[in-house]
């Protein structure tokens, strides 16, 4: 999942797809690259579970999976909390 988020274009796609109003062709217009290249980025995000393609009427829109993003964020936050706790305990020992 973090690998899928490692690319600037893909992060931008994830951001834009939060509203979920655009299809692949519309998203592709935002980037100075080929339609196929954008399609490839979206496929990587889809495999990582970060976006899904949903049918609304006759169109297929790309929508961000917010729950997947929250999981990634939560993991990093928990790890940060773990180490903040450790550093606080270390400081209490050496600065006493």
């Amino acid at each position, binding site marked *: *999942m*973090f*690998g899928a*988020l*490692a690319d*600037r274009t893909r*992060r931008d796609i*994830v*951001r834009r797809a*939060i509203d979920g109003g655009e299809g692949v062709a519309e998203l592709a217009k935002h980037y100075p690259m080929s339609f196929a290249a954008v399609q490839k980025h979206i496929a990587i995000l889809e495999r990582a579970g970060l976006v899904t393609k949903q049918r609304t009427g006759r169109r297929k829109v790309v929508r961000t999976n*917010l729950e997947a*993003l*929250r999981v*990634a*964020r*939560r*993991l*990093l*936050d*928990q*790890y*940060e*909390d*773990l*180490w*903040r*706790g*450790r*550093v*606080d*305990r*270390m*400081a209490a*020992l*050496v*600065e006493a």
Partner: protein
Amino acid sequence: MTVIAVRKNPQALTMTVEAEFDAPAGRVWQLWADPRQLERWWGPPTYPATVTLHDVRPGGRVEYHMTGPEGDQPKGYWEITEAEPPKRLVFRDGFANDDGSPNTDMPVNLARVTIEEIGGGRTRMSIQSTYADTAAMEQQLAMGMEEGLTQAVGQIDAVLAEDTVRTR
């Protein structure tokens, strides 16, 4: 006053923690090199650590278990690859089976600790942890974490950003 900065790099799956202490480097080194000191900070209060083997020399090993609120005792070990007192410690940090052997089903995290005096009786310590993948990070967090830790949701910018820096 401890100054701490945490840099999270989701793309490299690393987290770097930097802290400054009002203490000389030798004293900060003791936090790692003295098993009784290590026991006092490694585990959260709900999961105190007990160190049963401790040899922080290159090729050496540290073994410990933690004791959870339900009496559960997850085990872990370090394999020391580099040790240069009081400046540098590099080790593989893994989970162990009940008999103390490495649990190869579980991920191993590489930790690099550097300690340097910065003048005025202060010392800066940096710990860089590298994980193989997201699942590895998740498994490590499942051990020794406080129950019911606040689930930070909502803000997605930190995940989307290449690098997050928070200082207090």
